[in-house]
């Protein structure tokens, strides 16, 4: 799941606005992941965050033949 750095998050809610699968919500002024199944890793939340508080890291693997 995307990783949220609560120390950097100022609760601006931009990421909630861009998330098309409603995986994010503001709880107690901090972004929280509320839906873990539907996230398709579009990384828009990471891209939009002005504080670099969200990261969506990729694992790089080779497909087995």
């Amino acid at each position, binding site marked *: 799941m995307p990783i949220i*750095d609560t120390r*950097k998050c100022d609760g601006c809610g931009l990421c909630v606005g861009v998330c098309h699968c409603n995986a994010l919500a503001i709880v107690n002024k901090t972004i929280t992941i509320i839906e873990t199944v539907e996230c*398709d*890793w579009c990384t828009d939340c*990471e891209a939009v965050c002005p504080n670099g508080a969200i990261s969506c890291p990729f*694992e*790089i*693997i*080779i497909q087995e033949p």
Partner: protein
Amino acid sequence: MTVRLESLKSILYFSGLGRAELESIRKLVFEKAADRAEVVLLESESAENLYFVASGAVKVFKTSAEGKEQILSIVRPGESFNDVPIFDGGPNPASARTMGPVLLYGIKEHDMKAILRDHPQIALNVINVLAGRVRHLVSLVEDLSFRHVISRVAKILFEHIGGEMGRGPRLTQQEMAAMAGTAREVVGRSLKALEEEGAIKLDRHRIVITDKEALQKIMEVSS
């Protein structure tokens, strides 16, 4: 906490040393723990200590006047950073930030110089490490100067493939962008282009290399 001898042994600078030599070095090593995203070194500041990563990973980077970040290297366990200012007496050439919780081993500048005088094997190891670093930086200059962004991204994917035994380092698009010397948006576009060419498949949090040869060809294309 005591610095573990086994950890010291795995540091490139200290490879090939006997127990007695490692014991004498251990007395000069101090530990420093840092959390995720902590800046442990700032560019242009004076350097006091040489650091080794005992666990975790550290990103060494430069920042442009516009705030654009260029990653120079990711320092993994056993590797060192801040070597250059310790040896030439100048300021830190780059900043360093932790990529997660990290345990560092530090040695003060004057202690490191004493170690070098007392242990010629370490001086040889240092030369070996710094030569490797020069090779890496020459390769980086080549990447930034001559390669198309898409081939830079292909190269980064190749260099960060997870091993069979466990996970490789996980990279965000922001980190790939910093490594490629380009903007995050360009990396996103490059990944899409690589997917369209059938070289990779984006599978949620995974980038699956579906055609290694195709990716290699793209990687070798220079502008």
